[in-house]
């Protein structure tokens, strides 16, 4: 019996296509995440990092093994486990304000909670855009709406699926700081999937490196640095080099050769 906040034990997830070819998306995954931790999962595409995140969210089920959040087995989705999608996944037909309120509406607690909406708009710095529709705002703003929409449900855990993948560098850095700020004020546990080493390093307490075919965890690295982190600081650069090395090593060894 472990007292870990989120516990993933011996999880396997195999996909089968129509021709009965099976892909081992996840193989023997074991991971523990403590309350309040910021964990990043990095790895090349196809390493199963998004699959793992979807399992935690309850959007997908493992073939074997189990996942639990403070001792309770994860079955199906829950507003307690917020999920921020890669492209935001905003509802195009709702304004920024209505998108943020969507969770309240979905849970039938809109009336008694609608006074909280301005607080969340403020938190992600979208004042003045309350009545805008998703197509009228930038990609970075859309992601902030997606984060606010998740936060209003008071989640215990926020799962971020490459939320900054499609953003330009300046917007990305800006959003990273916003996420840190939110995390500091809300003290929420966060798990981020990314393919950007620098992003993982800048944000996380713990970095999980995954390798593809079959998708498994190759290494877990602790990052003990204070926030805000200086991206050009000595320790930071050292760790980044170490990480790059491992990452390349990790993905090179396991990479199968294709001969056509």
């Amino acid at each position, binding site marked *: 019996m472990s007292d870990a906040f989120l516990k993933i034990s011996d999880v396997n997830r195999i996909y089968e296509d129509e021709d009965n070819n099976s892909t081992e998306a996840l193989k023997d995954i074991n991971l523990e995440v403590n309350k309040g931790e910021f964990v990043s999962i990095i790895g090349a595409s196809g390493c199963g990092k998004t699959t793992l995140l979807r399992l935690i*969210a*309850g*959007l997908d089920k493992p073939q074997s093994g189990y996942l639990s959040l403070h001792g309770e087995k994860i079955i199906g*989705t*829950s*507003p307690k*486990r*917020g*999920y921020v*999608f890669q*492209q935001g*996944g*905003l*509802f*195009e*037909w*709702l*304004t920024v304000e209505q998108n943020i309120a*969507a*969770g309240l*509406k*979905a*849970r039938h607690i809109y009336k008694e909670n609608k006074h909280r909406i301005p607080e969340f708009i403020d938190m992600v710095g979208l004042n003045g855009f309350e009545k805008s*529709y*998703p*197509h*009228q705002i930038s990609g970075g703003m859309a992601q902030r709406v997606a984060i606010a*929409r*998740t936060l209003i*449900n008071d989640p215990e855990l926020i799962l971020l699926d490459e939320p900054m993948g499609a953003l330009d560098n300046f917007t990305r850095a800006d959003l990273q700081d916003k996420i840190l700020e939110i995390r500091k004020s809300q003290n929420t546990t966060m798990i981020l999937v990314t393919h950007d080493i620098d992003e993982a390093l800048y944000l996380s307490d713990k970095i999980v490196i995954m390798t593809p075919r079959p998708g498994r965890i190759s290494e877990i690295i602790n990052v003990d640095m204070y926030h805000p982190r200086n991206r050009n600081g000595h320790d930071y650069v050292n760790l980044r080099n170490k990480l790059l090395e491992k990452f390349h090593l990790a993905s090179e060894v396991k990479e199968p050769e294709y001969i056509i």
Partner: protein
Amino acid sequence: MKISKRARYFLSVIFTVLGFTLAVILNSVVPQKADVTFSQHEVFGLALTSNDAYRIVLYALIIYYLITGIIYYNYEDRRKKYLNSARFRFVMGILLFLWDLLGTKLQVLPQPFFPGPAGIMEAFVAEGDYVLQNTIYSLRLYFYGFVIGVATGIITGILVGWFPRVRYWLSPVMNVLGVIPAVAWMPFALTIMPTAFSSAVFLIAVSVWGLVATLTSTGIMSTPKTRFEAGRVLGGNEFYLVFHVAIPHALPQIFTGITTANGYAFTTLVMAEMMGQPGGLGYYINASKVWSAYYKVFAAIIVMAILFSLITKVIELVQRYVLRWQKGVVK
């Protein structure tokens, strides 16, 4: 620079009404060819001939375009539209001019098939009440048929789009019924429906139903998976996913269905009226044709043109409001 721009605009206002003014002058100055006489009728307490009525219409157009021309000067969007329409309105006036000249004044066009504009006004002046009565009948038929068709179409589309089992049984039915023109059901409709009115309502509803149902179901089924997942992780149940995710996502397609079906509804309406209704504009056309009263046929066609464009406009406004979240719809 600014003055010349203003001058140009006011010249275009003059140009807009010039065609209609020429038409009025022609109508007043050129004498009537001998054997045609216009009888007087009581309209709103005034004794008018149909030629007077035609001239009143021209005056009304001139006054309307002059006033709107002056008002729109202060609104850029409207001003541009007005400027753009000037040529068209001028030509419209000239066409009325020629029509009046050839159809009424000189009677060059074969009669009674091509009456002049004043001749057509005769239908409104002499039996305006009756035309109105038929117009209301058509409007009622259209309204009931269209609303019932759209409502049942949307409900069917949602069920087909959401439940695979319903889709299995209903989508072949929709595909087969969809290709049959609704009027083909006419003999059947007349038999099973209790009144002539309800049989036409049924036909219009059928003509609208298939298309709206098909497009609604495609709209529902094409909702991206991530939207549903977003709904679920936010705590939404199946009801939420249907009514707050799938249906809003399908709305643009639903409206495509509605606007296209609107055209079908008009066709079915007129055909149904021509083949077995005690009233309506289609009925009016048919009844007039028997007496070779072609001016009444034209009058009914003009009423249809106005009525159907108004209905289309209303639908367009509703669509623009409901889909205001779409790209390019909101300024």
